[in-house]
């Protein structure tokens, strides 16, 4: 089936066995994003650290309700950004957004995107792009809030609530 170009095995794997799912602390910002079309939602936390004078992503955790594409994308996103500097992670996020807007025409940059290249097929289904972007947009928002100090930071060691 053509649709298998979207539901690649790696996406189904992340959907069935999501990484970094379950909220945890400490964190510098928490956001909640909703896809108003279907009601899918994600609550996401970001913790930053200092990496040689530059902010870097110490941790990302999330809890989400949604379709396979949004769930797998959030999982892949955490793997792609944790441990990177914020600058590098924003660059990956920009590359992912570009891939999603490509209508299947782009030459995905595997070096920058890692597992996230598997979402190339999603870009051929415009109705699903928002699903794939939900976690990434939440991460971007949370990181911006963490950087400007409006993220309702929490120091405690929080187990999923």
């Amino acid at each position, binding site marked *: *089936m053509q*649709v298998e170009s979207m*539901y690649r095995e790696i996406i189904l794997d992340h959907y069935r066995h999501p990484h970094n799912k379950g909220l945890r602390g400490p964190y510098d910002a928490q956001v909640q994003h909703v896809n108003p079309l*279907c009601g899918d939602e994600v609550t996401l936390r970001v913790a930053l650290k200092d990496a040689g004078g530059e902010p870097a992503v110490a941790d990302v955790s999330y809890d989400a309700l949604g379709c*396979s594409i949004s769930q797998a994308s959030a999982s892949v996103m955490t793997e792609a950004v944790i441990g990177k500097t914020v600058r590098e992670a924003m660059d990956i996020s920009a590359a992912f957004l570009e891939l999603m807007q490509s209508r299947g025409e782009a030459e995905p940059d595997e070096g920058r995107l890692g597992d996230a290249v598997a979402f190339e097929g999603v870009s051929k289904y415009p109705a699903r792009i928002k*699903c794939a972007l939900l976690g990434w947009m939440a991460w971007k928002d949370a990181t911006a809030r963490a950087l400007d100090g409006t993220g309702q930071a929490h120091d405690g060691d929080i187990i999923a609530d």
Partner: protein
Amino acid sequence: MTTATGHAFDVAEIRADFPILGRAVRGGRPLVYLDSGATSHKPRAVLDAERDFYTIHNSAAHRGAHLLGEEATDVYEAARVRVAAFIGAEPGEIVFTKSATEALNLIAYSFSNAATSGPEAERFRVGPGDEVLVTEMEHHANLVPWQQLCQRTGATLRWFGVTPDGRLDLSHADELIGDRTKIVAITHQSNVTGTVPPVGQIAALAHARGAVVVADGAQSVPHRPVDVAELGPDFLAFSAHKMLGPSGIGVLWGRRDLLEAMPPFITGGSMIEVVRMEGSTFLPPPQRFEAGVPAAAQAVGLAAACDYLDALGMPNVAAHEEALTAHALDALGAIRGVRVLGPLTTDHRGGAVSFTVDGVHPHDVGQLLDELGIAVRADHHCAWPLHRALGVQASTRATFYVYNTHDEVDALADGVRQTQRFFAPV
């Protein structure tokens, strides 16, 4: 099949009237269109009527000192007469709007505009202490305008809940409908569960307390005979594009005495009587509520849709859909892991069948069905509170119309089983 009225209801013949049903979709598969609850397809007769307006009569109705202007006015007003007959109303009680959504907003804004209108609008004034009663199963179009009205005026929004099987919970009806109740706004058929609430019974209770009753007919008028006098509300809203007609036009039916006392919503050309720099007076209804150049081509298309449906016979349309719905309830109900939302029989239930599939998100169900050429809707169907009340985040919805077949219902059930296999845990 042979119908209640003795005429043949030949779906193959009907399908031949709808050019779009001849096209192929993904992978060259035939289109199985089960999304008429969102928008219906248009038969050639409707497409031709709209085209004829543009090729023969095109002009601005209700203006112009020329022949085309007269013709445009004539066909536009003839469309009003045709639509009125479709629901057993008087032509003067038919207001053309942009959509059912706009029709419902028109009423809500008339109510808040009444605050600054003359004494004739007294009965439309609402404020603190007054109550607007809706239901938890409303489409957002018959919920959000009332929330906003309450926000603008200080009135209180209250609502009927739903039972676990998707019926309206009427156990508190006597308490909910009281002397403070000014408006009762209720769907005539849920766009999610197909539930048909007892609008007549609720209208009787509301009228006994002096409240105005608004029925959302967007999912009922296209699918079965509706006679406004029999049904019993004061207002009924519906849209053309869900009943084989064009997009861009909707209908508000209102009782004449109410329309006459209501202040306008959208103002401008076409709806005025006298305009001076200091102020203006307005035409009687329905013109008072039709500011701007009328959507005449769309009105003509809608009239053609009424002709088409009446030629099939609305009782026959309803019987055909009931048979498809019964088939779908059986076929989906037989699949392990599938939960049909709402009533499980066709008793007081129309042809919207929403369901969930254990372990598979509705978006993924919809995507796999699309791959098989089956078009359904997969989200909260603009009825978020109802989904919440039924304990689900979203659902997959199949809706039926005159051109759907029993084979298509079987294709849906097969598609759901394929979807389950595709997403089965490994």
